[in-house]
């Protein structure tokens, strides 16, 4: 299910990537950026935590022209007065104004890096309301993808933000021995709320390659009734390489040394 969400077949809304200090979610966020750029979509990044150069490493330069970085990192307190983004300026209306400064008719994928920075400086209701306003669609923004560090906030704040989201992707570190060719980055649990009210949840083992394309190594099962084991069957884990979706790429994962 993670791949479908990355590919954007499920449409708009707000996607929250929840990570913690044990397992970093920024590589997955870059996987989202890369997939959006590959689809020729304009991507706007509101960055507070990492610099523009660090964000652009790994993404190929051809597609990087479609990436617009709104810099909130280099001058957070606006001492230099050069018109950089500050956290006090953040609101739905201001973000929309900044996005519409580029005259691209296509709908924009908005990346927020990160939501934790905003939540530490502005009240959570303002953040939730602005996210809801942006992800409702209708004006320039196709979907919003935000990174949230869940161990920086109280449980209530994290719960409230995830309540607004249409999909929540939680990354946790992988525990125990892992078989397979590629080393996994972690375990991702995706929860998606569809418009009809149906909720689906899946847990997968994923890895992000050097060029930030996301690969699902192993499906750890959806939350459904488990199929009964047949006696002759040995428990063999199936490695799913989503090769068909990445056009022309080598289906075998690169061997990590």
């Amino acid at each position, binding site marked *: 299910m993670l791949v479908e969400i990355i590919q954007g077949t499920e449409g708009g809304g707000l996607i929250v990537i929840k990570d913690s200090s044990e397992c970093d979610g920024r590589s997955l966020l870059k996987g989202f950026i890369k997939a959006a750029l590959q689809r020729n979509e304009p991507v706007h990044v509101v960055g507070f935590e990492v610099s523009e150069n660090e964000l652009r490493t790994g993404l190929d330069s051809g597609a990087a022209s479609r990436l617009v970085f709104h810099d909130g990192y280099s001058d957070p307190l606006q001492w230099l007065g050069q018109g950089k983004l500050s956290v006090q300026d953040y609101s739905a209306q201001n973000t929309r104004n900044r996005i519409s400064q580029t005259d691209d008719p296509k709908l924009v994928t908005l990346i927020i890096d990160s939501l934790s920075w905003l939540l530490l400086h502005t009240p959570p209701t303002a953040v939730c309301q602005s996210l809801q306003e942006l992800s409702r669609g209708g004006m320039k923004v196709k979907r919003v993808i935000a990174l949230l560090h869940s161990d920086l906030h109280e449980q*209530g704040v994290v719960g409230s933000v995830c309540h*607004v989201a249409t999909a929540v992707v939680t990354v946790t570190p992988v525990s125990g021995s892992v078989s397979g060719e590629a080393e996994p980055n972690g375990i991702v649990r995706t929860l998606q709320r569809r418009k009809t009210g149906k909720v689906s949840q899946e847990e997968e083992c994923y890895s992000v390659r050097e060029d930030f394309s996301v690969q699902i190594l192993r499906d750890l099962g959806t939350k459904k009734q488990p199929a009964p084991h047949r006696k002759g069957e040995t428990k063999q884990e199936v490695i799913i390489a989503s090769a068909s979706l990445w056009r022309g790429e080598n289906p075998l994962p690169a061997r990590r040394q």
Partner: protein
Amino acid sequence: MNMATKAGVNVNAGTRANATSFQKKSRSKLVSISGTRPSVQNGQLLVSTGVTSLDYVIGGGLAVGTLLLIEEDKYDSYSRMLLKYFLAEGVVCGHSLFIASSRDHPGDILQELPAPLLDEISNSEVEKELANAGDSSTETQDSMKIAWRYQNLPKVQTTLASSSRFGHYYDVSKSMSTDMCEAATCHSFFLPNELPLESAAESSNMNMGYIKLLRSIQGVIHKEGFDGAGPQNKPRSILRIGVHSLGSALWGDDDICCKENPEHAHSLTTFLYSLRALLRTSLSVCMVTVPSHLIQNKAIMGRITKLCDTVVSLESFSGSERETNPLYKDYHGLLHVKQIPHLNSLMCEVPDTKDLAFKLKRKQFTIERLHLPPDLSDTVSRLSKQDLAESAKLLGLGCGTTATGKKHLDF
């Protein structure tokens, strides 16, 4: 006849022919509004919540002038469904609607209402029966022989002309037709439209969003005459108020869901108190859904429960480990009835079981008693098959012998 007009109530005295000249001296307190019926327990006027099994669980229906609180399930799928049923029932009964939401536009909610299942017993059928009864002379052979005195009298209309049926069924897969939606009077309150996003002004007692909502509801009640202020000649109706996800961060309440010890917790409680006061003095009924799983402080939830009349909590199995439990395989979740009001009485109608589970099928939202299956584990002492075979052998020897196996038979 004079008494009825004095009471100012639209009683069907004109249509009913008086068999005797006896008139009851007391005024008829029951107002005949479509979609309502009096309660058999305490005489209150009840409306249906849209789900007939939920009506049964809360004591027959929702009393007019009370507040129903639904504690949302974790992903707000079933509580949203219940809200839609409630509003759809209002459309079918001809009540006015008031939809308040901070997340989805009320117009979208109105378009997603489930379509009612129109059953055989519709109004047209009742009229046909009355027409047939009129020309009874042609049916003397088929109709039952009743005493000739009574045959000439017109049939007494036993059903109330106002409500042919209390509670309807809905098809969830289809949405209500647009002309039916448009025929209903609907007032809406969408928070992002009412309140500019960047306003920071807050009153000391209540959150700005709640104040605006309360004023809006009060305005509608007064303007449309639900509090009895308007002229009496209009047929009475009920205002159904549905508020979605009250208390969540989208309503501007940044304390209750986000902090463990909120300072402005009284914002929501003051709102509920004022809302209930408005409801008591008008012909309206309200359903509020609250994301109680986000509220960190359980004491606040207790206060909220006390401030509402009927409280029902939903716990869905989706996403939890209970989904795969074979005990719960037929159901989608559990329903807990947290509180039922004592209205004008000392006792309330308590459901006979506390283990209730719900399932949402295409045509019905059913709430059933959860049956625990019998315990068939090995620890329960039962006759094993071997003992049965041996006792069968002993029986074969003769009628006189009793079949005692090697072990004691235990009952």
